[in-house]
């Protein structure tokens, strides 16, 4: 597949996943089972982020050190958020 076709296919996937997130809310799943729907929506976001980073930002073809660099930043942000939030539970 040429790069242009690949990028186009990815764009379609991203578009569909974004729509799916809204559909989860519109279909009332948040009211029925909040946390299940919540995690489904967040996982969809994570999948989209990985796809954009991997293909549009070309991390897939870059040295793993760049991915590690970004994951370090992400780890720091998640650690701060989770630990701080847990501390007041």
């Amino acid at each position: 597949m040429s790069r242009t076709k690949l990028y186009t296919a990815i764009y379609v996937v991203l578009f569909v996943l974004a729509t799916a997130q809204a559909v989860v809310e519109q279909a009332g799943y948040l009211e029925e089972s909040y946390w299940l729907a919540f995690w489904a929506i967040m996982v969809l976001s994570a999948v989209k982020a990985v796809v954009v980073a991997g293909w549009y930002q070309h991390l897939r073809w870059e040295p793993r050190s760049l991915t590690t660099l970004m994951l370090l930043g992400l780890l720091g942000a998640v650690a701060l958020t989770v630990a701080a939030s847990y501390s007041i539970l």
Partner: protein
Amino acid sequence: MTDDEHETTADPTGDEPAVSDGGTASDGGSIVDDDFPADGVPDTPHGDDHGLPPTHSIRRWFVTTNHKDIGLLYTVTALFFLIFGGLLALLMRLELWAPGADFLAAGSYNQAVSAHGLIMVFWFLSPLAFGFANYVVPLQIGAKDLAFPRLNALSYWLYLFSGILMGISFFQGSTFNGGWTMYAPLNMPVYTPDIGGTTTVLALILFVASATVGSVNFLTTMHRMRAEGMTLRRMPIFTWSILLTVWMMLFAFAALLAALMLLSSDRLIGTAYFAESSPGGAMLWAHLFWFFGHPEVYIVFFPALGAMAEIFQTFTGRRLVGRKWFIGAMLLVAIQSFVVWMHHMFLTSINLEIKTLFMATTIGISLPFDLMVFSLIYTMLKGKIRFKTPFLFGFGALVLFILGGITGVFLGAVVLDYTLRGTYWVVAHFHYVMVGGVTGLVGGLYYWFPKMTGRMYDETLGKVHFGMYFVGFNLLYFPMFLAWETPRRVFEYAPALTGWHQLSTVGAFLLGSSFLVMFYNLFKSAFVGEQVEGQPWDFASTAEWTVPSPPPLENFPGVPTYASGRLEFEDGGSAQTDGGAVHGKAAALPGSEVTETEHGGGESHASIWPFVLGAGAFLVLLGLSGLQRGYFPEGTMGGVHIGTAIVGGVLAFGSLVAMTREKFHGPEGPFGESWPFTTVENTKLGLWIFLASDVILFGAFIGAYVFSRVAHGWTDWHHLIPEAHVVLPGLINTYLLLTSSFAVVIAMEFAKRENRLGVVGSLVATVGLGVGFLINKGIEWQHLFHIHTEAFPAGWDPGTNIASTTFYVTTGLHALHVIVGLVIAGYMIFRAWGGAYMGDDEPIEYFGLYWHFVDIVWLFLFPLFYIV
């Protein structure tokens, strides 16, 4: 052991097996020995200055981008702030001569306490270390300069202007007077209403911008521009300490930037992050601040530790014992530093489980430090000590740090902390550690002074300085342990403690006056001191000592290489590398080779635009400091503030444009060793490193939202949001951004095919979609601002409640990123129309890295702020 046994220095470049007999390196790793100068060092160091004015010209210091000049500027400016912060400390000590506010007014004392802490921690300690880092690190790794010389100059000017802004805050009612930790809710305008308080916060933002730019620059340089054979394992210990410091800075300062931006939002716009009405507001500040604040302790101390290790090696004639373990311990501390922050919060309402966990991590972080301390002690035991001034300060720093470290372990234990927190025990411990670090850096100042000036200081006066310093230090801080029951930050204390405090005050003046000796010594010696060659010390082993003092503009007489195990310089040849190792002695610097031939004059060393950009940023923030609850003051002052901000904005934007148009050639690299980013070009790596810090910035903003929502009750949050806040605008904006990202990658494809109209069209589509995103957001915000419902009769604006605050500020930060991206894309359309990027998609790819990152952030903001 005889002196002869020390004539060969410790191995400087390698992590080779340690020698066991006190300092004789056995593996040929010496750079400097009795045969100094090292191979290939010429006697005529100074070459072409590439248009840079001479050092006696004032203009030079405004335009220079050379790392050594910037290092000198950092060092001198930091010493100025030492005087500034030191005088404030002396005022405090005079006030504390007796209990009560009988010397300074109460408010003035609060200002002195707060400003002293902020100035010393931010504007003195780290910048002094970065003076050395700027000067020494490129020399130690075999680079001509930093990767981005103009950004290096920009770092300095942002630093200087941030300090000036801090100074100006004293004249705007009062500077910030709520303590250097700026705890909430004291940091809110209701308690610290003066404009000067806001200016202090903005000054800190400017300082953090400087630190972030510097971090990106140093990380790119140290990972990409090491000489052949200068592997990470072989890097000198000072350079290692700086490498770990800048990694910590990259992430820690991003968290501080987030905290300061949220605080600025509260103070300037009237949002409610840290308001008493916001659940968990005070705790949110503490988490964000200390997530930065504890790594900051090591950010400040590591360079001192690196300097101490260099000094110990040089003045004992012995390679650092357990060198690789020492480096490993530093690495471990750098990682651990991000998981101990809550020990500063044991007296808050965080739960017992998390307190216990953080007590364990805190006690754990002392272990690698034990290893480092024993390594330094054992190095002394195995070597033969020469008691020169740098060593005295290095040794003094070790003693003080041991005391500071041990007393800190007390504070890491929850039950002891309950008693000791908020007392002078903390003050004493903190100063033993931090000013212990200063002691090591002062040792570094004496150590590298001959390299920086080409002249030797007066040894006798140096020793007098140390004597006064060490006695004064302990007279100042040790009584604070004995008077530990004194409450922190206030001028009242039990009369029975007066004697200890008076002793402290005497010590403070002795310590302060010791610096007069230093300033006299260094100032006089800089002009009339004994001239030195490249290497004034007998056993210094790192590369900066192989070149003349001060070094020539581009540092080395040829291409530095460590391939043979010792430093050699090679003339340029035709061999080029592919980004990996350079093979053979005929190898050349790919970067310099290209630059010499293509640009005819080598690297550039002068640009006025970093200074102008720094001045512009300064004026923007000075102007914005007048903003309160979204409005500038009435009357003339309001006009002055607005005008200042506009002038600053024009200067800043103009200088950015000018920098993009300026022909400036920095060193490109790689020069042999670039692990682990061998195939990632400098600019791309710099961009990725910046994005990593942006991950923390946005992560902290999102974290603030999550934390506030948890504090309020996650599923009750919807009551804070009007019904009119629906999914559709967010979904439309998701479509717009995803499509704009797609347009960017298509632009890259058109660039590869050299299709000019395709590139222009794709970029125009990107901008159009981005503008559409902003318009959609604007319509949505206008609607929400002006809703009238029973729950929100006055609309839903940024200050309505914590939900509106988090929504507008987080998506607002994202919108600012979009705007910056649109400006860049607009510029690229202009360039593409003129035929740029044909067959060269790299610039579009680099823009895309940023634009896709902005897209990714939105992919999380959309569900968090519109769906769940």
